[in-house]
């Protein structure tokens, strides 16, 4: 089994996924908390977009891609997560 991501990696991952359109903006009531399922789906979408193996977990390759220099604009348009959810 892949090792569980460290807390700081998880925090970085969630922030990154929100910033680039894979997770909806943080709920003011719950802060950055996301369900595990939602997070896994977002990671899968990010991995698919980035040409990585789609594992749904924050593995090393995924974290490395998140640290790759990139454009500031999101990959998915605003609301894409909501539409995906429906």
């Amino acid at each position, binding site marked *: 089994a892949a090792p569980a991501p460290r807390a700081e990696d998880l925090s970085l991952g969630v922030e990154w996924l929100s910033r680039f359109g894979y997770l909806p903006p943080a709920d003011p009531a719950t802060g950055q908390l996301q369900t595990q399922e939602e997070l896994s789906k977002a990671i899968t979408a990010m991995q698919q977009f980035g040409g990585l193996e789609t594992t749904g977990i924050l593995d090393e390759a995924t974290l490395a891609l998140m640290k790759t220099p990139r454009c500031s604009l999101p990959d998915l*348009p605003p609301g894409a997560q909501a539409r995906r959810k429906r």
Partner: protein
Amino acid sequence: QTPPPTKWSKRNLSWRVRTFPRDSPMGRDTVRALMYYALKVWSDITPLNFHEVAGNTADIQIDFSKADHNDGYPFDGPGGTVAHAFFPGDHHTAGDTHFDDDEAWTFRSSDAHGMDLFAVAVHEFGHAIGLSHVAAPSSIMQPYYQGPVGDPLRYGLPYEDRVRVWQLYGVRESVSPTAQLGTPEPEEPPLLPEPPNNRSSIPPWKDVPHRCTAHFDAVAQIRGEAFFFKGKYFWRLTRDRHLVSLQPAQMHRFWRGLPLHLDSVDAVYERTSDHKIVFFKGDRYWVFKDNNVEEGYPRPVSDFSLPPGGIDAVFSWAHNDRTYFFKDQLYWRYDDHTRRMDPGYPVQGPLWRGVPSMLDDAMRWSDGASYFFRGQEYWKVLDGELEAAPGYPQSTARDWLVCGEPLADAEDVGPGPQGR
């Protein structure tokens, strides 16, 4: 799931670099030229036309900013997010393009840590005209920085990007005389600053060689343009072989860092490995990044495993991407990528039949041919051939330096040292 595309309703868009990188070794002209070529990538294949303007009303305002610059997309220091651009629309920031000034922006650099400005600019201008990110790894619109994309003068968009931009704006009609009248092509800015060509920069005529009678010291293709060196002066020809000025420019005022006492150069070439420009004189050589000399030069020519005494000529042969050095009747073959002389050299020249064994200089040209210069003549060798083309030698002055034509004579003010 993608929203309806936003695009410009007009076809003529203005642009301006409002702020420049603060600590970059790149000059402003280089930054402007890179922006020009990055926009040209898109306008070459669509009906869009971009023109540079000076005022604050440009459609595409280009800035180099740091940290939070009040647009909702704060930069985060080196790495991370490196640039962004705003999609077309009615908002005042539409089309604006921002680069993180904390990145080490580079151009034609071998520095692996640098961020190639041209590659990022092509991507961002894709946003500025309405393209969003895509997952296709070969697309310029995939969101991650993947390193330099090559020569700005030769870069062509990948197929996916061409199709997507055609879906927005359609295909650029083939250029016809009427189309050109309606939408004139802007004048291409150079990748290097213009040499001084105003009369006040020209020194007294008695010292200036004449281009129509000169035996050139060195000839080189640099950034796609031809440079003819004689004494302390040089002439420059654009990519379409037009003289920038009939008057020569002063070498030291343009090639910043050459010693003032240097009265001539032996040979010059643009290195294919990193596109730096190398000047040879006697036992020494200088390396220039754009038109500024690099630190630590001059160095001895023994760095190239060349013997003392210097060289007469140097050029990179497009056919095998090797650099050839010539001295008297000998020549050497050098690999610029490994920085090693190929074994078995020097060899008695010439390699190309019909070309003189002793040369003033040589250069490759954008037509794929190689050109060899000696005295007032030149020889052309077609790409990959080992023999000079029939009909050569021809006159260098006539074919390259606009001599012997009525227009040239009429414009050629000043008596010149040979009394023309």
